[in-house]
């Protein structure tokens, strides 16, 4: 028993989980509404789109990169798909939209990947530029506008329920969207990729020391390229789900989400310098942000205070992990010296 406890206390994820629990309990105490079935379902539902974005961004950050283009990428993919299908009078099911969005996302992701992997340009700047380009294509070339209706196949996907949770006390019902399956599947696939394939270990290796990765025999270019393609696909799926769940396509709706997603990933213990972080932590960190965004109202905090709260959360969260790093470097150095004798 003690061994497990010891191992757990060394992991950042444990602390994040505890903070998450504490937050939940506080909200529960105040409102009695947190741990209700319909609230939990609502939260899960709210996690789908940010969760998918976070998974993609997480992989990028672990590889030592930084991507701020994913909301623009997703918006462009889904707008192009939706408007094309609308114009074609599409009446089929969700699979064609999924296919289209995946293909477009892969192409756009490949654009990022090409610039970053082959020209070795810094990811932050590249994605800064491509975010602009994607936005420009969507608003300029495609002359995007708000689409109040979307093909039935998409809206029915977005509104269909896996199950319905009913809160006996308040009588409120919440629908668990089928789309949650997408999040679960992507999560499982990415988990397997990162921990069970050399490609995934390669992402960690590159984030740890890119030149060593090259010398060890990893095809760094190929890994980076396909990483960004994958992120393009996942982000586009997220965009599709968003549109389906809202049953309308507002092209600029997702723009500006990038910073919150990154905050969630970082709060989850992912080092911004790369090479470290777990999928669990990433999801926990994102969950924290989603809970704050959605459940603050249960604390009686007016929605006006939300941003403030989020800001403080980020400052305090990153502050704590920074102080931990400071302490461990001092300690670590001392231990290293001792061991060297």
């Amino acid at each position, binding site marked *: 028993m003690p061994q497990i406890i010891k191992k757990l206390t060394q992991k950042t994820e444990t602390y994040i989980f505890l903070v998450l629990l504490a937050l939940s309990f506080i909200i529960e105490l105040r409102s009695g509404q947190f741990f209700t079935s319909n609230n939990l379902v609502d939260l899960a539902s709210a996690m789908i789109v940010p969760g998918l974005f976070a998974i993609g961004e997480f992989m990028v950050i672990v590889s030592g990169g930084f991507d701020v283009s994913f909301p623009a990428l997703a918006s462009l993919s889904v707008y192009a798909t939706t408007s094309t299908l609308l114009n074609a009078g599409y009446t089929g099911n969700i699979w064609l939209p999924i296919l289209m969005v995946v293909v477009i996302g892969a192409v756009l992701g490949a654009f990022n990947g090409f610039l970053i992997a082959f020209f070795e340009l810094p990811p932050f700047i590249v994605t800064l530029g491509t975010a602009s380009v994607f936005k420009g294509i969507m608003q300029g070339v495609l002359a995007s506008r708000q689409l109040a209706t979307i093909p039935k196949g998409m809206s029915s996907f977005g509104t269909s329920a896996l199950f319905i949770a009913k809160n006996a006390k308040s009588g409120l019902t919440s629908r668990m969207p089928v789309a949650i399956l997408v999040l679960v599947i992507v999560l499982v696939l990415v988990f397997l990729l990162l921990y069970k*394939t050399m490609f995934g*270990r390669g992402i960690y290796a590159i984030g740890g*020391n890119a030149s060593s990765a090259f010398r060890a025999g990893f095809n760094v270019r190929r890994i980076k390229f396909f990483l960004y393609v994958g992120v393009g696909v996942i982000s586009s799926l997220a965009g599709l789900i968003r549109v389906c769940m809202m049953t309308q396509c507002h092209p600029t709706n997702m723009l500006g989400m990038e910073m919150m997603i990154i905050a969630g990933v970082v709060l989850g213990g992912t080092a911004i310098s790369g*090479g470290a972080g777990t999928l669990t932590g990433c999801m926990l960190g994102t969950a924290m942000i989603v809970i704050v965004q959605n459940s603050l109202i249960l604390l009686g905090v007016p929605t006006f205070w939300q941003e403030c709260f989020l800001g403080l959360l980020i400052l305090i969260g990153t502050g704590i992990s920074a102080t931990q790093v400071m302490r461990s470097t001092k300690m670590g150095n001392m231990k290293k010296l001792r*061991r*060297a*004798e």
Partner: protein
Amino acid sequence: MAQNVLKVVDIKKSFAGVEALKGVSLEIAPGEIHCLAGENGCGKSTLIKIISGVYEPNSGQIEFSGKVHTKITPIEAIMNGIQVIYQDFSVFPNLSVMENLAFNSELANKHKLVNVKRMRKIAKEAIARINFEVDLDAKVETLSVANKQLVAICRALMFGAKLIIMDEPTTALTRKEVNSLFKIILDLKAQGIATLFVSHKLDEVFEISERFTIIRSGEKIITGNTSELDNKKFTFYMTGREFDDLAFTPKSIVGDPVMEVKDLSLSGYFEDINFSLHKGEILGLTGLLGSGRTELALSLFGMRKADKGTIRIKGKNVVLDSVRSAMENGIGYVPEDRLSEGLFLPRGIGDNVVISEIDSLANRIGVLDKARKQKEIDRWVEELSIATPNPDNACSTLSGGNQQRIVLAKWLSREPDVLILNGPTMGVDIGSKHDIHLILEKLADKGMALIIISDDIPEILSTCSKIMIMKNGRITATLNPKETNTQELSQYMM
């Protein structure tokens, strides 16, 4: 005669018109321990990168065990038994020892999926080859430098390696660890594995290698048996110049001490440090890595305030709690790692030299007097005879010796009373090393007090007027260099 495990013939390599290698040839027999020596910038690293497939030569031939190759990729070099351990060990600090060990082989065998059992088996076998005991699941960043190197060596041995190339392997090792490393190299020889050992430390060349090759300015100067080599010849081949041996005698140590340290302690690092330093003295502080010597130096420079004890400068008690306070009390510090701690590499010589005194080159509100700044820069470039085509060129383009001169200049321009130098000639070629020693001795003659921290025992013995040895955070002995020798010093250190 057995085939050479490695033979390179007439290798030429240029980068943007600059010839890095002008036709270098090298041969290594199976199981041979061969030392490749040369000053920084001579082309050793380029040669190694070509042998290991990272760079492609412009012309020349590479033979592995008799088979000729004109183009090789890193994986092909590995498959031919060539393994390189770079100075940074090419490890993944964020991953476990097991993964670090297993990745190369997994990738070479084109495994796409992770099989933990297989990887663990591979890792266990790897560490068994040199009897290295380590926790396979520990993250490599938590290991000591020596252990990181051992991980790199284990990894190198995994592929039926026939030749292991080590790039300056002893730079960050303690004496004990160097001995272990040499034992391993001999062990490898017994197993038929050759070692190409890059170093510029003469004592190591003598200690471990059987044959040597010296490169200067991209050309091979000589290859031969180590038994035929001596100090003078080595220096001559490396630099093209001849030097006399120097031993320093301080002119005259008069007057009150410039610095007096009493009962200085910093918990966890050093305790009860007592010594006094006079003008014109060169105090040598030595000890193994971890003995507390660097921490003591940092405390004296204000980087880490001591918990207990007193420091007096010129008779006055001072509190050194910041770098600024140390500087204002006339103390300067030339850091251990000049590249990351001492220099602003992308900037030119001028910026690097004047940065510590920049406030004195401006008026009250901080506006720079550009003419004064230029004069100061010109003065130092001349005084330290720094060789460069253009003083505005980035310092990264200069040799190690010149770089060290610039760091020195930075402090000398402040005319400190006490100058602390941590590893002043580490990674510096023999020619510059000699010149730097001369500079230091001239400074002492002019009245400066110097503290040199070094584990280069010949350097300590020849340049210092007093030697202090630290072990486990305490001073174990204070010796007169004229009355002691290498053995006695080593004894006190270990």
